[in-house]
């Protein structure tokens, strides 16, 4: 299932947030979105997932999601959004219960996704007992449980320390290499973008427009830490963003 955005614009009251965004999200690819703070990245992601409606333009699903897909557009949130009163297992079964999956069938799915995110030993722990990285892995496991056609991730790693982030990025790359998934990945962090993105959309400051779309051809599992080409791309992205970021920063000061 592909996603196509055509001429999407959005405004809140008088503030124009997004202007004329047209983007293809091909299936099986990870599209990263980077841009200065407040340029509308989170808003764009909410629009793509149908949590809000754009003021103008269309967001289209092309093709139908695979038959075993329970929730085609699935989010992974920056703040994890785990129910604190449910165990790890309970948090995952939450999203299965409504699809009539209970008992043995649910147990099988839960054990599978916990194994894939290396959480099998923590199935009965409450969220408060987990570290930040583990919580985000639970959120990833929960997203995997519904077999999403497209994963929408809003700065999923930015609440974590850099070592945990590095490890989780490896986990994501491994997950993708085993079964390629489609994802829109919003981030502040250019290193994450060049590590995970098949294409990277750079946005201008508010109102957010597409500044440029950068393509990366190196396969995900060959992109190591300190890879020369990655460094090059990252520098280029920073060059693109620098003026925007500076201007956005100055704007906030004058508010």
């Amino acid at each position, binding site marked *: 299932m592909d996603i196509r955005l055509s001429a999407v614009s959005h405004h809140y009251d008088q503030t124009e947030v997004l202007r004329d965004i047209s983007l293809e999200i091909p299936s099986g690819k990870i599209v990263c979105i980077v841009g200065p703070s407040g340029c509308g990245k989170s808003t764009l992601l909410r629009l793509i997932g149908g949590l809000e409606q754009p003021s103008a333009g269309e967001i289209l699903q092309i093709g139908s999601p695979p038959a075993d897909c329970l929730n085609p557009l699935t989010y992974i949130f920056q703040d994890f959004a785990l129910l604190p009163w449910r165990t790890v297992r309970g948090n995952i079964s939450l999203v299965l219960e*409504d699809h009539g999956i209970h008992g043995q069938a649910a147990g099988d799915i839960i054990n599978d996704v916990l194994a894939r995110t290396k959480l099998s030993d923590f199935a009965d722990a409450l969220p408060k007992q987990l570290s930040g990285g583990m919580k985000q892995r639970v959120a990833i496991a929960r997203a995997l449980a519904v077999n999403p056609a497209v994963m929408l991730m809003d700065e999923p790693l930015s609440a974590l320390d850099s070592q945990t982030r590095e490890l989780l990025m490896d986990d994501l790359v491994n997950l993708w290499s085993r079964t390629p998934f489609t994802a829109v990945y919003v981030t502040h962090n250019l290193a994450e973008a060049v590590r995970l993105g098949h294409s990277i959309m750079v946005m201008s400051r508010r109102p957010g427009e597409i500044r440029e779309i950068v393509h990366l051809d190196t396969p995900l599992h060959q992109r190591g830490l300190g890879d020369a080409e990655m460094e090059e791309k990252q520098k280029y992205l920073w060059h693109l963003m620098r003026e925007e970021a500076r201007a956005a920063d100055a704007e906030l000061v004058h508010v």
Partner: protein
Amino acid sequence: MSETSNAAEIRHVPFRGGGFAPSPRRWVGFAVFVVLIALAEIGTQTGFITPLTLPKPSDVLKTFGELYSSGLLWKHLSVSLSRLVVGAALGASAGIAVGVMIGLFSYVRAGLLPLVAALFPIPKIALLPLFVIWFGIDEGSKYALIAFGTFTPTVVATYGAVDNVDRNLIRMGQSFNLSWMSIVRKIVLPGAMPGILSGLRISLAIAIILLVAAEMLGAEYGIGAYILEAGSLYDLERLFVGVAILSILGVTLSACIGMIERRLLRWRV
């Protein structure tokens, strides 16, 4: 550090943390009761406190023993407890239902919040004669009074608690296509539970107060009737027996809620 202060003074860094985290100290509350009662006993025995001011705790205990052995204690208590349970259950469940609706629906909120604000300050005791006319002098008016008294504080506590549920969790539920019912049942209600339970503590104390008021009219048995009869005869020993029973009832209910809280809210930090 600075070169001028060369007198090397070595001290421990002063400790400034701690506190603000009450932990259970069961025996302290019990000790407070024991000390107060012991003081009253000593005061009345020595004559420092005249018998007209305060009855001797030992006499009160003796009166309690008589009440128990005559079998009347159970009679009063069972009648009162059933009134309390029925009335409070009606009021609290209606209050939780209405509170959740106010928390979730704009029109219900706009329509009912002013009404609740108007009902809250009415002294419910003043409405007892009205309830007698509406629901009869028997149990009906008593249930109604207690239910009405617990209803308003429960509503206020519940909608406040629903307002405080993390919106991100609700967004999460929507993003996984959970049905409206599931979101309410699995996200909103558990999230509001801490607030609902602490509101229930207040509501149940009010229910006990209203129990006595309800038994002012047309009640032969019941702790309230017992207290009122003793009061009108200026029989201080029996008055204090009744009051003590009410206090014990309050402590017991509060302990029950504490137990429910520990069980249901184990997930809290």
